[in-house]
């Protein structure tokens, strides 16, 4: 099985978010970058397929040379090879078109991309790839089993879960549940050393338009201080929620 895991290079979840250049750009100053958490669950699941069923795992990112450490990290975790599409990921459709091209050329059976990235939270790339290629698509996937070309997947739905059957080739929008937090791997020294010699192929982008553009950023208005209520005066809490906040 040939698996492609799409990796977004995103600010660490604890990063302070600031903007620069008249609030038109994300301020990368002092920001640590990581593999997008939703992608990391998918990557680990892909490594399981590789170890348990035999699979070749390629990771791919659309981005500049500064994203290569993130791809190397994925290689150190166990991916066999990496591809970087050398382009600024301007919007979801642009990225989806680049990835669709990589998938067509590489003939992957299974593509796992995070359900959404933690920077722009667009939640669109996996679905758009499926739309472009006309492939089977399971979003918000929390369990995945492959036998031959048959697939059983579980997706999270509002208030529960749903089991579906489908077949390869398949695009998956992944998240926690594909593996659990405790299953995520920290690269060991051997992995890091091996990753240095694994292939990281740089491809030039295909021409594609962006449909959308982030023109400006804003930070939420500062919050007023919390109103503290004594545990002996819970009537006051109920009163405030009813009369002031008007939520009960």
């Amino acid at each position, binding site marked *: 099985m040939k698996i492609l895991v799409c990796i977004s290079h995103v600010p660490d979840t604890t990063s302070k978010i600031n903007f620069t250049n008249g609030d038109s750009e994300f301020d990368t100053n002092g920001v640590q970058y990581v593999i997008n958490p939703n992608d990391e669950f998918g990557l680990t699941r892909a490594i399981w397929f590789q170890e348990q069923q035999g699979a070749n795992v390629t990771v791919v990112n659309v981005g500049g040379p500064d994203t290569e450490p993130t791809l190397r990290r994925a290689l150190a975790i166990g991916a066999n090879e990496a591809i970087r599409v050398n382009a600024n990921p301007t919007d979801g*459709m642009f990225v989806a078109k680049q990835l669709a091209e990589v998938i067509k050329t590489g003939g992957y059976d299974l593509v796992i991309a995070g359900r959404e990235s933690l920077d722009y939270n667009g939640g669109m790339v996996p679905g758009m790839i499926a739309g472009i290629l006309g492939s089977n698509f399971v979003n918000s996937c929390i369990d995945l089993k492959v036998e031959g070309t048959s697939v059983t997947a579980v997706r999270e739905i509002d208030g529960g879960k749903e089991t579906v059957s489908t077949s390869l080739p398949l695009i998956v929008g992944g998240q926690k549940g594909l593996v659990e937090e405790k299953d995520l791997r920290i690269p060991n020294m051997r992995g890091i050393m091996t990753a240095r010699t694994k292939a990281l192929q740089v491809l030039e982008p295909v021409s594609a338009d962006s449909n959308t553009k982030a023109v400006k950023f804003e930070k939420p208005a500062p919050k007023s201080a919390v109103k503290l209520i004594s545990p002996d005066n819970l009537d006051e809490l109920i009163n405030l929620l009813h009369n002031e906040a008007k939520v009960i």
Partner: protein
Amino acid sequence: MSILIYAESAEGKFKKVAFELASYAKKIAETSGQTVTALTINMSDVSELSKYGVDKVLKVTNDKLANFTAKAYADAVKQAAEKEGAKLILLSSTTDSLYLAPLVSVALNAGFASNVVGLPVSMSPFQVKRNAFSNKAFNITEIATDVKVLCLGKNSYGIFENAGAAAAEDFAPSISDADFGVKVQSVEKGSGKVTIADADVVVSGGRGMKGPENWGLIEDLAAVLGAATACSKPVSDIGWRPHSEHVGQTGKPVATNLYIAVGISGAIQHIAGINSSKVKVVINSDADAPFFKVADYGVVGDAFEVLPKLIEKLKAFKAQNS
């Protein structure tokens, strides 16, 4: 011209987000001289949509669509948009709509923005404000294409009545067998429980609850308030509660009217996931818990003492005010 909304339903009833979407569409339609068309799937009585400003309903009745199937539903939305010549297609932010939207966007060659909060900032160029960076910031996104698809963030606009008379019309999109490459085998869903996605109030517990055996208190508080229950990431990681209840940056986002956090310290990733909620209450024995910095109301106290008292008092309050 008309704006198309997909009015989501479950078990023969419209979801609340469908009414919010209708209210939102009506407002845009009024200011831009358009009408609102709603697409419904396997709903017999669609009259309720009239209350929220829908002018026309396209009713799809098709047994093949009994289960949500993203590709087939996307096909129905696409054909409805083409039939109506709609340039603006609006969906909600439920798991199903978020699954559909990118497929619709590709099918219609439309620019797509999710997590939209509030009315468009500008109609020409078309710009919307959306949540980004896991609720730590907003971005203004400009959509350049002629046809546009938006997913409206839950609770970001509100529900407004706008009485009218919606004309219902049967609509039979051609759904091909190729749309069913993914088949539903079984659905597991807590019956009669309020889901996080649908709730106006969410009561959430953290490690401060000390163990799954104490969740009765969270459930009782939720029951009085008609709320959904949720939990922090550590709680779902240890397995005290199912992953479907985990809210936060890597779990479910919560955008509710009232969010009550009990025994949750308020890690930045948790706050990111719940920050779109309007009113936040925190109950925690540690006065230094970071949650107090972002909450509207706080009680510093032991959950095991505060919750039973609060539940009793709320019961009395509800009895008086219902």
